């Protein structure tokens, strides 16, 4: 069971982030207390950059980020233990050559002794019906299969916050549905980025990011609806 945080809140206070000279997040203030939070927005709007502040992969140029009581500046090194992070591109997440090693590393980072972690990797995979992948070299998996490995490797760590950066983009429909159902039952706080907007139906809150600012923030049907309308308007103007 994931350990509950005493103060389960992600707080951003006038956060500005610059990357390569561009302002990517612009004096953003947010309080994320809900259990299920969706993050949407066009490509390049700053979604991935924002969630990278939560686990210390990026740090704010101005302003303050506090995640479940940990200041992201002082306590950057402790954040990854609180915040599980599924990368948008599986190739950016995978560290080890075989599936079992990848999962075992997570278990070890979560505090299990080495041997125990190695032993538990296969049962952990079995919970997802993928025990037979244990010995497979990761690079011989299909893209969707790799993506599932990334998700499993983070879920087994049972962190207090789960950040999913478009976790289902390459998954097949049955696997996506089963993961959505599984995630719905988890006790942790979930921050999910997706372009597949159906995913948010049962969420508590959806935030629409636009050029590093919040364009809309509220219940899923309102925000997703407005975003869809925006998308239709934009796409009326054809390419080329």
């Amino acid at each position, binding site marked *: 069971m994931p350990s509950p945080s005493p103060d389960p809140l992600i707080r951003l206070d006038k956060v500005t982030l610059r990357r390569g000279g561009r302002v990517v997040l612009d004096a953003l203030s947010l309080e994320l207390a809900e259990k299920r939070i969706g993050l949407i927005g066009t490509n390049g709007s700053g979604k991935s950059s924002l969630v990278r502040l939560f686990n210390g992969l990026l740090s704010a140029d101005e302003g303050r980020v506090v995640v479940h009581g940990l200041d992201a500046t002082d306590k950057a090194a402790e954040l990854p233990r609180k915040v599980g992070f599924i990368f948008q591109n599986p190739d950016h997440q995978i560290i080890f050559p075989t599936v079992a090693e990848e999962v075992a590393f997570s278990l070890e980072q979560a505090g299990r002794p080495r041997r125990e972690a190695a032993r538990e990797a296969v049962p952990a995979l079995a919970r997802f019906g993928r025990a037979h992948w244990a010995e497979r*070299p990761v690079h011989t998996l299909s893209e969707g299969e790799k993506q599932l490995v990334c998700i499993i490797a983070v879920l087994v760590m049972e962190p207090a916050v789960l950040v999913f950066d478009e976790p289902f983009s390459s998954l097949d429909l049955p696997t996506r549905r089963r993961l959505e159902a599984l995630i719905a039952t988890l006790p942790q706080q979930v921050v999910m980025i997706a372009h597949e907007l159906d995913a948010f139906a049962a969420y508590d809150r959806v935030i629409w990011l636009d050029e590093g600012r919040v364009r809309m923030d509220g219940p899923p049907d309102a925000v997703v609806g407005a975003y869809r309308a925006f998308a239709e308007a934009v796409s009326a103007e054809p390419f080329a």
Partner: protein
Amino acid sequence: MISLYLAERTWLHGVPAGWKLLALALVSLFVAPFDALAPMAGLLAATLALYATLGRPALRQIALLRPMWPLIAILLAFHWWRGDPVLGVAVALRLLAMVLLANAVTMTTRMDAMMDAVEPLLRPLALVGVSPRAVALAVAMMIRFVPLLFALWEALGESWRARTGRRGGWRLLAPFCIQTLRLSHHTAEALAARGGVPGTLPRTRRQ
């Protein structure tokens, strides 16, 4: 050429990593001074016999030596030219045998097992503030990067071929350098995202 790990299990997978590494180190030390034909031929024969006991998948891995043939040819030609072809053959045999032996260890040992085996040797380093787990991880990563660099080169080549139908060759060198750096950048992020270099923070134990 440090072949990828072999998914099909063989009996050698079951031998503890430490023993395999020790055996390899001992053999390499032992054969270094020999330049005679007979012992080297024997060594290679024994190595091939070892592969035979590992089964067909292992034997297939011998194909990984293909890039070494030109080197062997040059070596043989050179020693011939110097008037000592027998020495050339002996040297080539040793080279092949040792590479195959080392490959046998690599393809039957998972990296975490490798780390385990190495760790006791590193314990003294803790005295100067270097965590043995960090060193073990660096070793594991380095060994992982070698085949990955080849995979990266291949992926670049595929992308080039997909648009040209030809091989990219030297033109891919500069893109390759940049890709390798991106690879390491992403790997560093992936490591950080899961708690960073181990052993540097007090671990919170959970039940």
